[in-house]
Structures are given as C-alpha cells and as structure tokens.
C-alpha cells in the first residue's frame, strides 16, 4: 500500500477536493507528472488537462482543470486551478464555448506574444476536447 498524502484542489469559487490520496497525475506545463508522497518541494504551472486523483481507498476520480498552478510539498499537494470541474460533469457544449471564446480572443489579440499564448491555449483545449469527448 502506497503512502498517503493530503491533496487539495481549489478553484476561485470553491474547494473541490481535500482528501488523503496516494497518487495524483498533474498536467504540468512541461509535461504530465505524477505526484506521490514525499515529493520534493515543487511549484509548477498547469495547462488545461485532466487531473487524475487516486484516493487512499484506491478509487480513482478525474477532474478537468483549465490552467492554474500546483504547489507540491513532501507532506501534501495543493492545486490552484483557474477553473475546475469533475470530469463526469464536463459537457461537450461548455468546452466548445470555451474554445469559441478563445478563438474570438485570438482575433482581438493586440500583440503577437499574446496571440501565440492564446493559440497554444486553444490547441490544448482542442486536444482536451478530443480526450474527454471521443467523437
């Protein structure tokens, strides 16, 4: 049995999860990473993707997050998501809406740097759309 640690998933609106878990997979900006207990203190930004949480009971739950950052300590892990929903509640329509808003934002972007950032975000969203809603 793997060692358990505290995991918290918070969005600006509410605290989604605060529980003992054994394993968390985070979509970090530089690639996915799995956090286990006693991880070295790390701070990383997050791209839109799926966070999969393995509870101490062995049950796995999945959440979809849209950007944010994670604060990892040996004793626990806190994920501050800009917006987060349980994967089961995410619908195709809400995701599509996000993609559309990003698309319009790209059209209004003032400088190239901003535009590149948004385009990257859009690519991640589209990828996510494919993962969550296999056509």
């Amino acid at each position, binding site marked *: 049995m793997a060692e358990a640690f505290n995991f918290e998933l*918070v969005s*600006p609106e*509410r605290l989604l999860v605060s529980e003992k878990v054994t394993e968390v997979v985070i979509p*970090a900006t530089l690639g996915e990473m799995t956090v286990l207990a006693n991880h070295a*203190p790390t701070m*990383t*930004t997050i791209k839109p993707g799926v966070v999969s949480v393995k509870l101490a009971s062995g049950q796995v739950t999945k959440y979809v997050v849209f950007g944010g950052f994670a604060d990892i300590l040996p004793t626990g892990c806190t994920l501050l998501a800009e917006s987060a929903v349980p994967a089961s509640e995410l619908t195709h329509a809400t995701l599509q809406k996000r993609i559309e808003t990003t698309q319009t934002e790209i059209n209004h972007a003032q400088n190239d740097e901003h535009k590149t950032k948004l385009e990257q975000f859009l690519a991640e969203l589209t990828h996510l759309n494919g993962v969550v809603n296999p056509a």
Partner: protein
Amino acid sequence: MPSLKDLKNRIASVKATQKITKAMKMVAAAKLRRAQEAAEAARPYAERMTKVLAGLSAANAGNAEAPLLLSGTGKDQVHLLIVATGERGLAGGFNSSIIRLARDHALKLLAQGKTVKIITVGRKGNDILRRTFKDNIVDYVTFREIKQLGFAQADEVAHKVLALYNAGEFDIATLFYARFQSVISQVATASQIIPAKFDATQAADASSALYEYEPSEEEILEDLLPKNVAVQIFRALLENNASFYGAQMSAMDNATRNAGDMINKLTLSYNRQRQAQITKELIEIISGAEAL
C-alpha cells in the same frame, strides 16, 4: 386635524409599506446566507495564492527585472480607483459609505496635484460619482443582469485594469469595497492591488521551503501576478455582495420596525378621534332632547 377617513387611508398605506419592507428583509436574509457561503468558499484559494506570491515576491525583492505588477512603475503620479458598490439602493449607508471613502481619497489625491482615474463597478457608485468626477471616470462595469457572481466577472474587470496598466495609463491602483464584518457591520475599505503588497510575516512563513520551479521562478511569477489581481477583485466583489445584503437586511429590519411604530401611533389617534366623534354626537342628541 385629519379626518377619520384620512387616518384610515394612512394606516392602510403604512401597513402596505411594512409588508414590502418585511418581505425585502427576508429576501435579503436568504441571499445574504448564499453570498456569505460564496465568500467563504473563495477564501482558501485567495489565501493560498497570497501565500505563494508572498514567498515568490520575497525571493524576487531585490531583482531589478521583477515584473512591473510587483515592483510598480516607480512613479505615483496617476492613480486608478476601482470603486465597487451595489447595483441597487435601499441598503442603508452601504453605498454611500463606500462612495464617501472613495471621494475623500480622490479629492486628497487631486489636492496633491495627482491625476485620478476611476473605474466604477456597480450602478449606484457610477450614478453618484458621475456627478462629481464626470471627467475622471474611465470605465463602468455593471453586473445588473448577473444573478450569481462568478470568477468570470472578476476576470473581466481585471482584464480591463491590466490592459490599462500595460498601456501605462496609471501607476497605482486602489480597490474600494465594503469588507463584511458581520450582518450589522460592514466596513468600507481601500486596498492597494497594483503594485502588489504583501505582509512581511506571510512572506517569512512561506519562503522557508526550498522550492524547485517549473518553469522558472520568473515565469511563474509573471503568470501569477495578473491572476492575483483577478483573485483580489473577485474576493472584493464577493465581500461586497455579502455586505450589501447584510446592510439591506438591517436597513429593512429598521424600516419594518419604524412602520410598526407609526401604525401604533396612527391607530391611537384614529381611535381617539372616533371616540371624540361619538361623544360629540351623544352631546348633540342629549342637548337636542333637553331643549324640547
């Protein structure tokens, strides 16, 4: 002396008013509970954000290349005041106390020869401030149609503020809102959000851990600072919302009680007058009978 009929009409109208204020009080109480829950739910995020940022900014304190949002532009010539008020009135001194604080602050800055720009959030503040500072208001945001305040709304305000900042339109931004202390007390508060300020104690607390940063520390900081602005605004909006319903509840409670007092007083004089009239009629009958 008003006639009996007049008194009766007035009693009926005060009773109708009392019914309305009573209903408003109960609606405000129900909404207050929800607003308070929302404000509490948002707290963990804001707290962690501040903690992380405090640690990061402490580490970057001496860095000359730190992002502008943290270090400021180095000037304090142009001030931006973000004034968050309610969308509606009938909430006692809620709106006026925020506006008074903002106005005093603006007048003080103007007297010092600084430039003042104002963004109003909420219809009430816009209506009143427009009278005095017509030329200073640069933007106006209203959430009239929105039932449940979400992070998206705060983000919208933050976007406007950041766009102005990046365009070099102002040097220091201060946010005005009412901090929710309890149902009966809301304190109008001013807090500086740009450049960001942190408590020294929080920084000392957070920087003790040695972190690995992925990507670099600077990039994370650059990513987080704009988010922090949105979070601060979101928090202020939620507190404001809770304060508004708290103020409205106590204002309506007072109004209901005043209406009750008034009904008692009017009923008393109604009864007295009715008695007087009966006595007068009796005297007329008796003196008429005696004359025969």
